[in-house]
């Protein structure tokens, strides 16, 4: 594996980082850190199909470190209205904004899990490797994470609906 192999994975890594973190600047910091770690630890020989999971696991480790060290603006939204913003001021707030914010209300693990499966499209086995979890745990945690996310979005929808009355 060499530096040029990173190129094709850059859009995917950026997208994952952008969804994991709220502030785009934090996301780009994470991408930069990830690229640096990858370059610094690049295996001479890695099967092509393993490049992508390897890079995502590096990003995941960097992400966890950043959060633990308080380097990111890791904050939960204090009230659900902030999931969409004020409907009067921001009538066009779309679902994806609400979803992006709702994700930030989930734990670091739940967020990674959902995004790796639902957005990055990894197999459950790959996700288990990336997150260093037993595969059985991945499935059960996933469903719990989906439930939590659903609850958040529902509450936010209720709130939005009430505000618009």
């Amino acid at each position: 594996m060499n530096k040029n192999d990173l190129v094709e994975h850059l859009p995917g890594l950026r997208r994952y980082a952008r969804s994991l973190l709220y502030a785009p600047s934090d996301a780009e910091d994470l991408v930069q850190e990830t690229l640096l770690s990858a370059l610094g630890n690049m295996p001479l020989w890695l099967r092509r199909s393993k490049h992508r999971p390897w890079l995502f696991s590096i990003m995941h480790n960097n992400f966890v470190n950043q959060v633990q060290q308080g380097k990111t603006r890791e904050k939960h939204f204090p009230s659900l209205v902030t999931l969409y913003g004020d409907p009067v001021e921001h009538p066009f707030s779309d679902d994806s904004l609400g979803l992006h914010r709702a994700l930030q209300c989930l734990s670091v693990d739940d967020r990674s899990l959902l995004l790796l499966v639902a957005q990055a499209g990894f197999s459950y086995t790959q996700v288990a490797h990336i997150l260093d979890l037993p595969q059985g745990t991945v499935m059960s945690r996933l469903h719990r994470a989906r439930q939590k996310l659903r609850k958040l979005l529902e509450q936010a929808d209720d709130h939005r609906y009430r505000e618009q009355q």
Partner: protein
Amino acid sequence: MSTPNNSPYEGLPFDADQMELWLTARLPEPQKHRIDDWLGQHPQQAAYWQALQQDQRLLAQLNPMHDHRSLDDYALTPRQTPPARPWLRRPALPTLAAFALGSVCSALLLPFWATAPSEPASRPAFVQNAMQAHALYSVEVRHPVEVGEQEQAHLLKWLSKRLERPLAAPDLSGLGFQLLGGRLLPATDSPAAQLMYQDAGGERITLYIAAAANSQPSSFLFSEHQGVSTFYWVDEHWGYSLSGRIDRARLSQLSSQVYQALVL
């Protein structure tokens, strides 16, 4: 309401793993059809699972990258002197990102609409000034400060008067840093103050305080430029920035201490 009060699996003839595979469309066709058919006949359960399916779809579509970046846009040789966050030089950001930028985490502490969407995640002006002042004065051997710590009372009275706010020098001795002294600096609208501390190893950190009337209150933010790290925050229209060439964890600890000491 689509979340059933009881378990979403109650009465469901499929297990959690199957439903997960169904959600991500990874089931073989016959099994998928069996679940679709069953849900078709059980609208109550179907509402919940379809809502999860919709979430799955939205997650899959979340944050498409409209702006292209190449490896060259990242500082990948940082152990020398990297350009600071080269990606910040790019003005164009996709709509959603721009919108999100406008409401970075200060928004999390405030009602969303109370934050101006104009201040992006780039460093406010006072932080640039603080980092420049740090770089300039912390390396001074003979004149690192204008007024030394032995005249602390005078120093603080003077700075308080020029800044038109009470100013104390936070005690950082518990974390190994002693006050060296301080100086008055020109800033955008009004003067700024710089207090310098030094530890036993000779490492220096500077605390920079300037009026930041137009900045939104924020929690601790971190920035790094040419080896100088800084934590900065805005509180009651004052911008604070603690800079040094020390590791982030230590600087963060010092920043919390400073923050607590300087709350107005």
